[in-house]
């Protein structure tokens, strides 16, 4: 591996491979699709999710209880010499392939987000070192001037709200969804690229 890969901007094919390896590899390893905005949502609503988890564990216990009752009922029927109802075989109840993987636990999603941060830091550290940059990119400053912090904050709110309204962002819809040719994802991706293009043209025309 030459140093070009560690230093400069990657050519499009290398970037495309890296993104695809991440999205497909994540799904192949865990059976769950990669989607970053969903991780934010789960972190924000983590208290409710943990409460639901506790309820579901209690429900699982009730399922065991129901199972025990069922067994006792069958025993009683046998004892009384009554015909047992037809049993469903476990094979028939087993999930048919392809299977549904359970959700990645909350802490796993937290690890993913922290490591994305670390990945950005590593890339920067290996290519000239990290310099803390308090003011936005020059172009962003030129476009928004003193309102740049407001643009960042408002933009963030729109990103957070919009991705949850759409049910996905660049990773969940753009890669995991478009890669599977899902109608909702294709539509959503077209919409966020479209509105990004439209606003950028307006910004370039009006502010620059």
């Amino acid at each position, binding site marked *: 591996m030459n140093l070009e890969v560690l230093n400069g901007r990657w050519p499009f094919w290398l970037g495309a*491979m890296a*993104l695809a390896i991440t999205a497909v590899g994540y799904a192949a390893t865990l059976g769950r699709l990669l989607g970053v905005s969903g991780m934010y949502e789960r972190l924000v609503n983590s208290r409710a999710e943990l409460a639901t988890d506790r309820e579901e564990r209690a429900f699982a216990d009730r399922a065991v209880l129901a*199972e025990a009752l069922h067994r006792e009922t069958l025993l009683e029927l046998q004892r009384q010499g009554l015909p047992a109802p037809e049993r469903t075989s476990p094979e028939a109840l087993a999930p048919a392939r392809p299977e549904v993987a359970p959700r990645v636990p909350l802490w*796993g999603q937290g690890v993913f987000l922290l*490591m994305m941060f670390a990945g950005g830091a590593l890339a920067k550290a290996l290519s000239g070192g990290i310099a803390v940059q308090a003011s936005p990119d020059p172009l962003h400053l030129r476009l928004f001037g003193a309102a740049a912090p407001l643009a960042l904050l408002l933009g963030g709110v*729109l990103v957070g709200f919009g991705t949850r309204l759409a049910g996905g962002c660049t990773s969940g819809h753009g890669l995991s969804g478009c890669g599977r040719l899902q109608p909702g994802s294709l539509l959503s991706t077209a919409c966020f690229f*479209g509105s990004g*293009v439209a606003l950028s043209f307006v910004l370039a025309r009006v502010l620059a």
Partner: protein
Amino acid sequence: MSASVEVMAAPPPARVAPRAAPRWGAGWGRILAANAGFGLFLGFSLSHIGFGEYGEVHRMFLFADLRLLLTFGGAVALCAAGFAALSRRWWFVQRRAQVGSVTGGVVFGLGWALSGACPGIVLVQLGEGRAYALLTLGGIFAGTWLFGLAQRRWGWGVNERC
């Protein structure tokens, strides 16, 4: 009486085979390794692709530089090949087209063009030392929280999540 003892000795099989599946479907080691490894790789890659820089994203939206668009398009094409193979093994959530796909997509796109960040990129920006991205990150958390509020307040439908 003796018959009942015999019956007790051989109880009928359970209706459903007891499931001893691990709680998360995979061991914690695999979950940790996959999330840490792919998270690090994605952050590293996005930084080198240049998605963290507002100028690059702005030029992508203006079609002034096609590299990012080609990167994304190429990734989708490669993903299509990969997921075609994967879907024989796993069932993945289906994403129907719904009103939220359009409104949410449009709102997200506006935010992306304003801030230059999507939910993943903002973390990469922070890792790169772009401290101003803290504002974007705060905004994204606020927006996510606001959506949950709106959902509970007005009973908006829950979108399928990935």
